[in-house]
Structures are given as C-alpha cells and as structure tokens.
C-alpha cells in the first residue's frame, strides 16, 4: 500500500537543516527511528540539538550521529550509561541538558498542545531546578518548565494507514506521540502502510494530522533484537 505522505529515504535530509532542534522518539532502541537516523548519519547535516531520552548506543541509533560529530547538544533524561556521550561531554564538544524524564515528556506534549509553560513539582529543591523559576501553589513549591518544541520530529511506529494514522507495537510508543505533536515537520518510520480504514478509529494512537511524512523501516525484529535487513 502506498500513501501520499510516503517519501524515499534519500528525501529525509531535505527536511533537516544545520542547527535544527530535532525530537527523536524511543526509549533505548524501542520506538527509535533507526532507519531515519542511519540516513541522517550519511549526510553532513550538523550542529543538531537532539531531544531524546538517551542517545542510543555506540554505533546504534543516535550513537551514530554522536560519533560523526553531528550533535551539538543533547536534551534528555539519561546519558550515564552511554560511554560515548559521557566522553564527548567531558571533552567539551557535546552540551548536555538534563531533564527529569516526566518533565521532558510533559514538556514535549505541552509544545504540541499549545501550552508554552507549566508548573511541576518534579525537581523542586534540586540542582536541576537551580536556574528555573519556582513558585508556590497551596504552600508547595513547583518549578516552571518551558515546552520543548522541535523543528523536526523523527518518530517510529508499527503501522500507518494511507492518511498517516499510526499504531505502535507494545511499549514502542513511549515519546513518539508527544513528539509527533511537538514537531513542525514530522517524519514517521513504520513497518508497513495499510489501507485506510484498516485501523479502527479507537485504536489509532497518533492521528494523521500530526504526521507529515512516512518512510518504511529497514529494520526488523530478529532473535529478540532489531536487525537491519541486508537485501
């Protein structure tokens, strides 16, 4: 099945410019648009600010962009276990902005929902709120957090219909719907495109009005992991 929204892998780079803030879905490698990231790694786009929970693994997912030096800044919640990110930060060529995971998720959703800022109890009284505005409501302190929009959002889903409605495989959704809401340009990587009408209105998780372009993945699940198709 084809969709008007489907683009070829080589078209992806047209939508990403040097210096863009790019939202990239995924919790670990699940829900990460591995094919799209691979394509970007082949280009010379640079100075990207990547908003993603982590930065993939060395030589997997966003780890490839890191190794290439295409990332200027990473905004996310957990980089500790990614040796490459830690080294890059220590060597001074990667900026890192750390956010509590829930603040990150809510901030991305807020950007997509037209909410420029919101108050959260998370992080109040910690180093992560040191330079942020704090305010009391009913005697309790809350931190003002700004929304986190993207020039581009790169997301991963299981199936799309021709309109671009998306469904996910199990916990693959994670940040993807919020990022689809928050990206000015949204490209979704999917396993397959099914005929419109095949997805039930109630089961759609990311509605087509949030999705601009579709690409088909080159990865499949094999032996409990994601493997790039060789053919």
């Amino acid at each position, binding site marked *: 099945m084809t969709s008007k929204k489907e683009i070829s892998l080589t078209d992806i780079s047209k939508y990403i410019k040097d210096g863009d803030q790019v939202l990239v879905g995924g*919790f*670990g*490698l*699940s*829900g990460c648009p591995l094919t799209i990231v691979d394509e970007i790694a082949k280009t010379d786009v640079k100075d990207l600010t990547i908003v993603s*929970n982590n930065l993939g693994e060395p030589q997997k997912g966003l780890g490839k962009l890191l190794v290439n030096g295409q990332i200027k800044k990473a905004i996310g*919640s*957990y*980089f*500790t*276990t990614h040796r490459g*990110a*830690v080294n890059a*930060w*220590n060597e001074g060529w990667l900026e*890192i902005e*750390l*956010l*509590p*995971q*829930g*603040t990150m*998720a*809510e901030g*991305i*959703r807020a950007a997509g929902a037209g909410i420029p800022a919101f108050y*959260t*109890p*998370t*992080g*109040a*009284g*910690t*180093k*992560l709120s040191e330079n942020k505005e704090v305010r009391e409501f009913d005697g309790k*302190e809350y931190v003002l957090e700004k929304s986190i929009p993207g020039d581009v959002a790169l997301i991963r889903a299981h199936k799309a219909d021709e309109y671009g409605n998306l469904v*996910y*495989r*199990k*916990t*693959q*959704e*994670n*940040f*993807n*719907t*919020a990022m689809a809401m928050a990206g000015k340009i949204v490209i979704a990587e999917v396993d397959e495109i099914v005929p419109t009408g095949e997805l039930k209105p109630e089961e759609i*998780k990311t509605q087509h009005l949030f999705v601009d372009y579709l690409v088909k993945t080159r990865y499949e*699940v094999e*032996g*409990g*992991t*994601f493997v790039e198709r060789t053919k």
Partner: protein
Amino acid sequence: MNVQNNVKTMRQDIAKRAADELGEGEVINLGVGIPTLIPEYLGDKHVFLHSENGLLGTGPAPEAGQINPDLINASKQPVTELPGSAIFDSALSFAMIRGGHVDTAVIGALQVDQTGELANWAVPGKDILGVGGAMDLVAGVQKVILTMTHTSKSGEAKIVESLTYPSSGYRKADVLITEKAVFTFKNNQMYLVEVADGVTVEDIEETTAASFVVAL
C-alpha cells in the same frame, strides 16, 4: 560464606522485607537494583507493576526465544504483559506518577538524611548525566520506600544528618529498609521501627550518622 554471597543475601533480605510493605492490589513502581528482586518475594500478594516507559501490569522476563524488543521495562529489559495490563505513552505514564496515581515506589538511594530527604541520582564530583524518572517518582507517588545497604562498601554511613549528595527533591521518604533495620519518617523525624535478627540498637547507632527515635 564469601563476601559476594553475603552481599547477595543482604540484597535478598532487603527485597524480602520491602515486599512485606506492599499492599494487595497496589500499583507499584520498582527502581533498578534491589527493588527488581521484590517480585520473587510477593507470594500470593497481587500487585500491579508500573513501568514508566508505558506499561501497567508488567510480567516476568520472557522465555528465551520469546523476547520482543518492543516490550520492555524502564530498565530496558525485555518483559511480558500480564492479563489486564495496559499500554500507554510516556506523557500519560508520568502523569500517572506525578499525579499521585502510583501507590508506592520502591527505589534505591545513595544517601538519606534524618528527615527522609534522599539522594538517588548523582554523586558529588562525578559527571551529572542521568536522572531518568527518579525525581518524578520521588515527587509524585503516594509512598516512597527506600531500599539500600546500611553503609557503603567502604563502611561509610549512608544515613546522615544532612545530605552531602545532590537531593532528589523536597519530598521525603516514608520508609527506609536496610539489611540491618527498618526506619520510618514522619514530620521530619526518623524512627527505628525494626532491627534484623542479631542486630542491636547500638550497632545501628554506630553505623548511622543520623539521629533517630527508637520505636521498636
């Protein structure tokens, strides 16, 4: 018994005791480390495990050959889903946590002070590059249970008068479980409510750098 076995037993003892704190039907979020051992000690008690990446009703690890890399928990380990489980996105998952809908979080700590304020995400002098969902859990859940070894590997006190490690937030822990003792916290006061077999109050006092009320 070698040291390694000793540590293993300690961790198991802590997990076992923590399991007793959980109520039938509660929604629980388990942190990394010791808390992940808790499911082995639940017996007939049924609780709902919440994984912050978007799963309520997390089941045990799959059989070899049954791994779905898109069905994982917050530690990125493959899991299964139990009947009645629900799947959702990260924004809703943290709305559940922040909004107080998760009954209990059982989490590790690097340090806890005598008011119950805790540090569990960063070590002074080391790179601060990860926080994950730690602060959201501390700020949001109804009850925070800490599980940790009573002292550090080098024997230093982890229960202290005031934190020297970066705080995880204003919210205080409710219960602290170590291999030696169980403490509770109320109104910024720490209470010793249980000691392990063969452990004396004096032993606890020696290895604890904080004031507490003995309430055995």
